[in-house]
């Protein structure tokens, strides 16, 4: 307890203080030079299209035909559209469940591979493999594994007399949602494991020595040293998991197209169907704006709750 409290309530000194007044013009020029290329690209590819999407949400447009102003009718359609409501719920469930599964798993694996044992370095190299695969390839690979009767999992189940493994994993509405969550976990846990591994390695060993001298066991050490020291890592990883799952699309598009019974119809999928299949880009833009606002709201909340945007170091008070 004493270990963690000294760290969390240590002096709130910023890493580098605000700049003195003199030479401000030069610094502004340097900032402009360094940041403007990124901001220009960002503006052209993210901000402007977002603004245009907002504009499109008040119109009716099918790419080829005439663009007509329809006011709020797309938005009132969204409010009464049961399909959109279902997608919103599925999206939020997907993001929530992904976070609940991925965070502890990635943290445990990250701490595991941060250990000094040589076999763990070998494991870490293998854990990275899903990260190296293209999503299209990964999805088709799992389609083969999960296929009923001829699939790898069904075959494994037959050999081990575990008959429940032979299911129509991608066609049975009881499973599809959880299968998709599982595949997203399989794809992205390696990345978050890497983040947690780096976070764990950045914790100064002195803290563990101090905890050991205080007589802390492994569980106490975890809750009073590792966990508080990883808090910025947790914020970064959680933001990426939640925002990433809100906009997730690829695997669902390749494997289920939102089906069966719309169990995997996330907002991004619904938007794709409305826009690119039914070519109602006005209404699809409503869904896009909703998704964008949802993502920004989540990111903003996490940043506000944790002060991540202030970029404080997790090791203030330790020198």
């Amino acid at each position, binding site marked *: 307890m004493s270990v963690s409290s000294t760290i969390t309530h240590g002096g709130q000194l910023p890493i580098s203080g605000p700049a003195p007044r003199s030479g401000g013009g030069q*610094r502004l020029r340097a900032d402009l030079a360094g940041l403007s290329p990124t*901001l220009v690209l960002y503006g052209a590819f993210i901000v402007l299209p977002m603004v245009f*999407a907002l504009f499109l949400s008040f119109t009716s447009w099918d790419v080829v035909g005439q663009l007509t102003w329809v006011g709020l009718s797309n938005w009132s359609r969204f409010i009464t559209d049961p399909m959109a409501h279902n997608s919103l719920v599925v999206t939020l469930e997907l993001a929530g469940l992904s976070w609940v599964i991925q965070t502890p798993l990635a943290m445990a694996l990250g701490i595991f591979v941060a250990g000094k*044992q040589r076999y763990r370095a070998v*494991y870490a190299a293998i854990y990275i493999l899903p990260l190296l695969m293209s999503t*299209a390839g990964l999805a088709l690979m799992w389609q083969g594994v999960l296929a009923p009767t001829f699939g790898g999992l069904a*075959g494994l189940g037959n050999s081990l007399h575990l008959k429940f493994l032979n299911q129509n994993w991608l066609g049975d509405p009881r499973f599809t949602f959880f299968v998709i969550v599982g595949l997203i976990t399989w794809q992205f846990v390696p990345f978050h494991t890497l983040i947690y591994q780096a976070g764990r390695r950045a914790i100064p060993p002195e803290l563990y020595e101090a905890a050991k001298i205080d007589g802390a066991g492994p569980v106490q050490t975890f809750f009073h040293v590792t966990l508080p020291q990883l808090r910025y890592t947790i914020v970064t990883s959680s933001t990426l998991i939640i925002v990433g799952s809100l906009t997730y*699309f690829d695997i669902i598009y390749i494997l289920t197209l939102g089906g069966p019974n719309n169990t995997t119809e996330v907002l991004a999928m619904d938007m794709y169907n409305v826009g690119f299949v039914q070519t109602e880009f006005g209404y699809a833009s409503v869904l*896009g704006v909703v998704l964008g606002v949802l993502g920004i709201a989540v*990111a903003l909340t996490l940043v506000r709750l944790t002060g991540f945007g202030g970029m404080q170091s997790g090791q203030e008070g330790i020198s």
Partner: protein
Amino acid sequence: MSSAEVLPAAHGDGERQRRATWLRSLRRSLRPTRVVAFVLGTLWLCVVLFPIYYMVLTSFRSQTQYLTANPWLPTGGLSLSSWANVFSSTGLLTDFVNSLLYTAGTIILVVVLSLLAAFRIVRHSTRMAPISFRVILFGLAVPIQAVLIPHLRDHGQTSTLRHLDRAGAGDVGGVDGGGGAAHRQLRALDPW
């Protein structure tokens, strides 16, 4: 070792010490937390490897072997027909070149721009830097499909998108036992 030969009296001591160190490290690695970590870590290893193993295994099967052999054991003979199919399909080289170009271009842009920007953000000498940082972070939250619709006005890029899509499929043409069926499968889903 050579010092032990020179001083035979020290030999026993060194041996004992080595054994003690070895025993200590063995005991440390047999601690319950370490054993549990090893077991769970190995379990995740299997979860990661099983589908990849299945993909490699199935890539060496023909269509009939896919239907008749045990799905997850290396039995039922070896066939290179799927591999031959992928490499004889037209446009594979173009697809790879396209992928390389996209990758190289992206890496150069990302590294140069983020290096420049990150340097100014860490210095945060003016208020512009932290504000830009927050704004850029929110870019993560913007769904790519939402910003894709406005770009639709430029129809030219759909053909390049299609090439990229094909490259993705070409990578894994051997996935499906149907011999390059994966390739066709993805093409069938292709909306463009």
